[in-house]
């Protein structure tokens, strides 16, 4: 009873009469722990909240595979995956702090309401101590805010918008995935090298927060190196046929098209752009190029042959260690155990989710407590290695991971449906690091909330 | 001066002259029948009277006020009620509820929000409705579903609903169309009873000459959108022009 998240408890007691008998004394599960859902048995429950229906269902399914693998490894099953290469050796394969890891799953439907409902049921019904997952920034921000209120740790899955660790950052939330700003910073030097510094860019931008931040980042970085932005047109999220947006691109005199689109939008806009033959055109004496700031394996699969030769950025790729060496150790260990279990290599969404689970478990072990505030302390400013992305920092100021960003290009002749992109370059972490207080990332982290 | 005065009404639909210079006067407290062959413009005329159609020219005065440009429900509130060719009742409602609605309409006007009190506690309205149902011999069916009634009873109910509003002019559009002989006679009796008991003007459009000659005090014959003759039933029966144009020599 010493600590309470319901800071108005004093008020609550005095207004018991006003509450007409409803204002019953508050106490939540396992009060002794002093935080929400303190695990009291010999198990601990994690909540995996991923899209299982709707357009991102396949991505959600891959995330879920990674989570199940992580749980298996934490509980000492399988070959241990990245636990063997992880720079921290706190994890012993005996669950988390000796408690066997169990999990519950839910469907976010890629809607913030549904995602919150699902997360709440995990917290209120299943007693989950940590929530992780998601494949869009809207969902990540919504669930992160919920976890902050409830006193639960949120380990974000795939979310790329600046807002998650910017405008909407929360003390209880952590993001391993990279963001729009980093995409811009990582791509710019590669673009200068590949396409030159004298280019005219035309942006098509998904008309919502993530689109805005991505366009901002791309414009800022490309304009800084000398590119001119000819035009930037916003496209509705619900658009399926982008012909009327693609057709005027050539007329504008642009020689680069930047598609600030994700998921179905990206698959369709890229397919349409290739259909219009943009890639075969020569404008201003230069080969016309298309850029997709944020790549994903599933999108690449959806776009098929259309991605060949198209540059973009990724958080991670399963060929990283093979092609770029030991710096990215952990990659092969993960790919191997994932591949053995499921028969195909993991996506970057799977990797980020797997890593987030491991990082959470490790933080609990190191902190010696499931208390969210202890976990936050253990993760803040934590430097680690061996989880596939090279040396990484979980920055204390905004709970964002800083690590190398992979720049990839769609393969001309893919061997199989899992090997669609080639790694062009890896932009080192220093080049994509920004100050935590730049205007794009303004927001208040607040203080950690342990809940009840 | 009649209660209903129609002057120089014209209505064209594209190339078709539906009504041409219709002049008609219906005297108060009479039964006035309008007859004519198919396409003579009877229905068009009726739709003009109830506000469903607006004529191109002319005037329609009811009790000294123009009805033109008013909405059907406003014209109804002026005192003109209409009975349809196929009975238009509230099929989803009970017989009693059917009868309550016109009484509400009479009492509360075209719109009045009464969302709080229960309809079942409107004693006065229910009493009036039950009285009306009794006079129509429908009291036993009051809690029945009106859609389940026979066509004849639906017709009675519809006429009763119109009467419940205490209209000054009752318009009937072929009230016995498609009815069995017995139902037709019942309806004629009901209308006769109404005529005897109330101060009411009735305008009736009808094909069935049996009905027309049983009820009408004056008859107007329409042909090709214009009134051909207007007279008493006896005169109309013998009128050569009418026999020629409408009834046919054999009638």
């Amino acid at each position, binding site marked *: 009873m010493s600590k309470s998240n319901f800071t108005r408890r004093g008020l609550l007691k005095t207004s018991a009469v006003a509450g007409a008998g409803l204002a019953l004394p508050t106490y939540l599960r396992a009060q002794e722990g002093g935080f929400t859902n303190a695990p009291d048995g010999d198990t601990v429950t994690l909540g995996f909240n991923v899209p299982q229906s709707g357009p991102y269902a396949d991505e959600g399914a891959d995330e879920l595979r990674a989570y199940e693998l992580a749980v298996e490894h934490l509980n000492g099953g399988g070959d241990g995956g990245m636990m063997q290469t992880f720079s921290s050796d706190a994890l012993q394969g005996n669950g988390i702090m000796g408690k066997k890891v169990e999990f519950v*799953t839910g469907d976010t439907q890629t809607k913030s309401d549904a995602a919150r409902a699902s997360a709440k049921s995990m917290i209120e019904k299943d007693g989950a101590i940590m929530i992780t997952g998601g494949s869009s*920034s809207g969902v990540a921000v919504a669930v992160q805010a919920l976890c902050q209120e409830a006193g639960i740790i949120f380990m974000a899955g795939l979310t790329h918008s600046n807002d998650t660790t910017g405008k909407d950052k929360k003390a209880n939330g952590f993001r391993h995935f990279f963001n729009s700003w980093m995409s811009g910073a990582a791509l710019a030097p590669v673009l200068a090298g590949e396409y030159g510094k004298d280019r005219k860019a035309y942006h098509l931008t998904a008309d919502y927060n993530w689109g805005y931040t991505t366009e901002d980042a791309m414009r800022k970085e490309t304009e800084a190196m000398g590119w001119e932005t000819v035009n930037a047109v916003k496209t509705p999220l619900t658009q399926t046929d982008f012909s009327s947006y693609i057709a005027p691109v050539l007329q504008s005199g642009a020689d680069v098209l930047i598609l600030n689109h994700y998921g179905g939008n990206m698959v369709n806009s890229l397919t349409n752009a290739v259909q219009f033959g943009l890639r075969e055109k020569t404008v201003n004496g230069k080969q016309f190029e298309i850029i997709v700031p944020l790549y994903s394996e599933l999108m690449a699969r959806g776009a098929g042959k259309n991605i060949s030769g198209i540059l973009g950025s990724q958080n991670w790729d399963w060929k990283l260690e093979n092609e770029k060496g030991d710096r990215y150790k952990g990659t092969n260990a993960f790919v191997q155990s994932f591949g053995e279990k499921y028969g195909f290599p993991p996506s970057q969404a799977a990797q980020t989710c797997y890593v987030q689970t491991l990082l959470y478990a490790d933080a609990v072990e190191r902190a010696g407590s499931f208390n969210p505030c202890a976990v936050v302390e253990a993760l803040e400013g934590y430097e680690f290695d061996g989880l596939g992305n090279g040396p990484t920092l979980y920055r204390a100021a905004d709970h964002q991971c800083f690590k190398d960003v992979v720049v990839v290009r769609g393969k001309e002749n893919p061997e199989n449906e899992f090997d669609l992109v080639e790694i062009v370059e890896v932009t080192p972490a220093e080049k994509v690091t920004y100050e935590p207080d730049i205007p794009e990332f303004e927001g208040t982290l607040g203080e950690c909330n342990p809940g009840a | 001066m009649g209660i209903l005065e129609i002057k120089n009404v014209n209505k064209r639909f594209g190339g078709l002259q539906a009504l041409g210079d219709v002049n008609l006067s219906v005297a108060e407290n009479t039964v006035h029948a309008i007859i004519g062959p198919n396409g003579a413009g009877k229905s068009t005329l009726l739709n003009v009277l109830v506000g469903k159609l607006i004529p191109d020219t002319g005037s329609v005065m009811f009790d000294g006020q123009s009805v033109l440009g008013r909405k059907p429900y406003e014209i109804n509130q002026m005192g003109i009620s209409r009975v349809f060719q196929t009975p238009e009742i509230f099929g989803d409602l009970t017989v009693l509820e059917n009868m309550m609605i016109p009484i509400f309409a009479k009492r509360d006007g075209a719109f009045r929000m009464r969302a709080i009190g229960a309809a079942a506690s409107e004693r006065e309205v229910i009493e009036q409705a039950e009285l009306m149902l009794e006079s129509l011999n429908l009291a036993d069916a009051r809690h029945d579903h009106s859609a389940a009634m026979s066509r004849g009873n639906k017709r009675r109910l519809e006429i009763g609903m119109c009467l419940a509003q205490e209209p000054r002019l009752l318009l009937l559009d072929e009230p016995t169309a498609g009815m069995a002989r017995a139902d037709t006679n019942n309806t004629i009796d009901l209308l006769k009873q109404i005529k005897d008991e109330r101060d009411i003007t009735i305008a009736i459009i009808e094909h069935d000459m049996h009905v027309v000659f049983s009820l009408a005090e004056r008859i107007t014959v329409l042909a090709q959108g214009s009134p051909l003759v207007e007279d008493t039933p006896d005169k109309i029966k013998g009128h050569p022009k009418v026999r020629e144009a409408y009834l046919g020599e054999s009638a």
Partner: protein
Amino acid sequence: MLGLTKKDFALLLVVTALALFAPFILNPFPEGSGMAQFNAGYPDLMQRFAIFGIFAIGFNILFGLTGYLSFGHAAFLGVGSYAAIWMMKLLTDNILPAMLLSVVIAGLFSLVVGYISLRRSGIYFAILTLAFAQMSYALAYSVLTPITGGETGLQLKLNDPRILDAALAPGERANANLFGLDMTASHELYFGAWQFTFNAGYYIAAACLILAFYLSIRIFRSPFGMMLRAIKSNNTRMTYTGLNARPYALAAFVISGMYAGLAGGLMVAMDTQVGPERMFWTASGEVVLMTILGGAGTLIGPVLGSGVIKYMENIISKINGSILHEWFSWMPDGLEDALVTLIYPFVGKGWHLTLGIVFMLVVIFLPGGLVEGGQRIGRMFRRNGGASRAAKDIAEQRNPAE
């Protein structure tokens, strides 16, 4: 009693009892048992039952009584939500002003939309309402981002003005409350292996549901309600009985819009966050489906329909492969795997499939919705001589016309 007939009052009592004892009724299985998966008695879902119940009851006043099929009611819910969260950001975290404003704003918005849309009827009306709602959604998602927060929506922030509230102490967060009663405050009762949660927010929502249900009975039974049914039954006769159908329909539209606004406000009060997809056409479609599934034009139907849909969405969707294996682990291996393979497509990520099948089965075998199911059970009981009062009451709520 309370201006209701005996039967209606009994129905109100049933609904009140169900709402008050929901924490017990919805948690019939002991914690830790395999069946605990089916427990729905946790605050968030109970709140959702109440909130969507209100939404559907309101929708039913329009659709069930007048027959006007609005395909844009989610817009009113969304607008109500935005109004509520802004009130909580700017004025106070007390939910009362927020909910009042959400009802008022949703009412005003529905007045505008209804005034325009009701110039047409039938499918034309449906498309007009759909168009308004889709425009609201699209704009809220994109160009109105400064007001609506766009994709990421709006949440309470530490630095919101909250003019009426005292400044937050360090470490304190803004919480939705009713005069200090925190919406997240819960009391837990352990009874052997059973666990029951009594949540303050849920009881606020339940009180609103009971009030909303009571008002809807009053409206159904009022002369106004009779007029609305008359519109649905025969608009021509309505007009030729001297009644102006449009203001009646508009009043029903606004009332149902205000119900939607209340539901939207409650959503924010229970869970302080708003996102635009709340207004997407599928959300409007959902309330249509809830109402029809339960039984349009009946009093209790919409509440049942919303309950079934929300239950599927929140409970069935969480049953995953490992839970299935746990359930059937006592079986011989081959049989276990066969059974899991058989059931798996219908649960967890396949919950939509089950929902679709339920829609079809209900509409094929119970043309009047779930209420007709209750009706049939009621008849069965009566034939056996032991008619249960509640079943009978529920059963007789159905308009015989349907």
